[in-house]
C-alpha cells in the first residue's frame, strides 16, 4: 500500500495539464468579455436614465412608484430579520430538533466545556445541543479523543469517525442523547435507533450540525442504562 503522501502527490498531478499560456489567454478573453458587457451595461443605464427623466411620466405616478418600492423594501427587511432571528434561535418547526423530545435540563448559557478533560494538547469544543457540549483533542499524531459534557456527566471516548455507531450519552432526567457520525460514504442518516435491553427499539430523527464539522444528535426519553445498542437508518 502506498503512503498517504505518495497518494496525495499523485492526486495533485491528476488530469490533462494545460499550458499556463493557454490558461492566461482564456483568462484574458473572459476579462475582455467582462469589459464588453460593462460597456453595454453603461449604455443600458444611459438609456434607463433617459427614460426616467422623460417628462411624459406624471410626477404623481413616480411618487406612488417610489412609495410602493419603499414599502416593498420595508416588508422584505422585516421578513429577512424574522428569518435571521429564527435561524439564530434555532426555531425551525420542520427541523429534527423540533420533532425529538425537548431537553429536560440544559447547560448554563455561554459556559464553555470542561477542557480539563482534554489534557495538555490543543482542543476544540462547542455546544452541539442545549444539553451537550462536545470537543476534540489531538496532538497531531495519536488518535483524536472525543469528549462531552452534559448536565449530568463529563466523559471522553473514541472519536465518532465516519461509519462508526452512534455514542449514547446520559443527559438529564433519564434522557439519552446519541451522537451520530456521518456514514462511511459521508452521507447523513436521518433516524437514530436505540435497541433496548428488553429487545424493543425506539427511533428519533437526527438533527445535523455541519459547522465546524458534520455531526448529528438525537434525543430519547429513555435512560442510558436501558440502551443495549445504537444504530442509524435512512
Amino acid at each position, binding site marked *: 500500500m502506498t503512503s498517504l503522501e505518495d497518494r496525495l502527490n499523485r492526486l495533485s498531478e491528476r488530469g490533462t495539464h494545460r499550458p499556463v499560456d493557454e490558461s492566461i489567454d482564456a483568462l484574458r478573453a473572459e476579462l475582455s468579455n467582462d469589459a464588453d458587457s460593462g460597456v453595454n451595461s453603461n449604455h443600458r443605464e444611459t438609456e434607463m436614465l433617459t427614460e426616467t427623466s422623460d417628462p411624459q411620466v406624471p410626477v404623481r405616478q413616480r411618487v406612488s412608484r417610489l412609495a410602493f418600492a419603499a414599502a416593498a423594501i420595508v416588508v422584505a427587511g422585516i421578513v429577512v430579520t424574522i428569518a435571521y432571528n429564527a435561524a439564530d434561535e434555532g426555531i425551525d418547526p420542520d427541523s429534527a430538533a423540533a420533532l425529538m423530545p425537548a431537553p429536560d435540563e440544559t447547560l448554563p448559557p455561554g459556559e464553555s466545556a470542561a477542557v480539563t478533560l482534554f489534557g495538555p494538547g490543543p482542543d476544540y469544543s462547542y455546544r452541539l445541543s442545549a444539553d451537550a457540549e462536545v470537543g476534540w483533542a489531538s496532538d497531531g499524531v495519536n488518535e*483524536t479523543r472525543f469528549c462531552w459534557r452534559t448536565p449530568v456527566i463529563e466523559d471522553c471516548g473514541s472519536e465518532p469517525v465516519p461509519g462508526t455507531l452512534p455514542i449514547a450519552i446520559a443527559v438529564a432526567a433519564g434522557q439519552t442523547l446519541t451522537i451520530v457520525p456521518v456514514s462511511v460514504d459521508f452521507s447523513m442518516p436521518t433516524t437514530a435507533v436505540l435497541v433496548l435491553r428488553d429487545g424493543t427499539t425506539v427511533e428519533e430523527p437526527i438533527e445535523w450540525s455541519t459547522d465546524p464539522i458534520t455531526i448529528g444528535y438525537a434525543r430519547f426519553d429513555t435512560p442510558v442504562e436501558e440502551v443495549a445498542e445504537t444504530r442509524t437508518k435512512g
Partner: protein
Amino acid sequence: MRVNASCCVQSLGGVEQGNDAWMDQREMTSRASLDRETEQLIRALYPSLRRFAAVAGASESDPDDLVQEALLRSIRARSLVEIEFPEAYLRRAILNVASNERRSTRRRSSRLRRVSSGLDGATNDTYPSDLADLFHLSSVARAVLFMAEVENATHREVAETLGISESNSRMVAARARAALRLNLKEETS
C-alpha cells in the same frame, strides 16, 4: 495599499455570492484587467495552485478549470498584486469554487438517483481505488492533508492559509486520517 489576505475571507465569500447574484459591471470593468505584474504573479503561482486545485477539486472537475475560475473571481474582486498573501487568497478561492462544485455535483447526483435508481453520479471509478478513497473526503480535508503531508506545512500555516482555526485543522486532519484507515480496513476485510 497592500491588503492582508487574512482580511479577505469574508469578502471572498461575498464575492462568490455576489458573482452569482449581481455584480456592478462598471466597477468590474475598471478593475478587471490583466496587467503585466498580475500576469507574472499568475505564472509564478500557477504550478502550485494547479496542484492544490487537483487535490481540492472533485474527481470530475478539471484542475485547470478550477484555477481559472478562482483567478477570474479574484481578479474581478480586487487587484491580485495588492494582496499581501496572494497564494493563500487564491487557495481559499479555489477551495470555495471546489466546495460549491461538490455541492452542485451532490445535488445533481441526488436528482439522477431519483430518476434512475442505482445510478451513482460519482465518477471515482476512473481513478485507482487508493485515490478514489481520497475523493470520499471533503475538499477541505484533502486540502488540509495535502498541505500537512506533502507540503509539510504546520497546522498553524494550514489554518492561516485556509482561513480555519489551528485546532480545526488538526481535527480535520485527524478525522480524515481515521476515515482513510477505516476505508482501508473495510477493503482488506
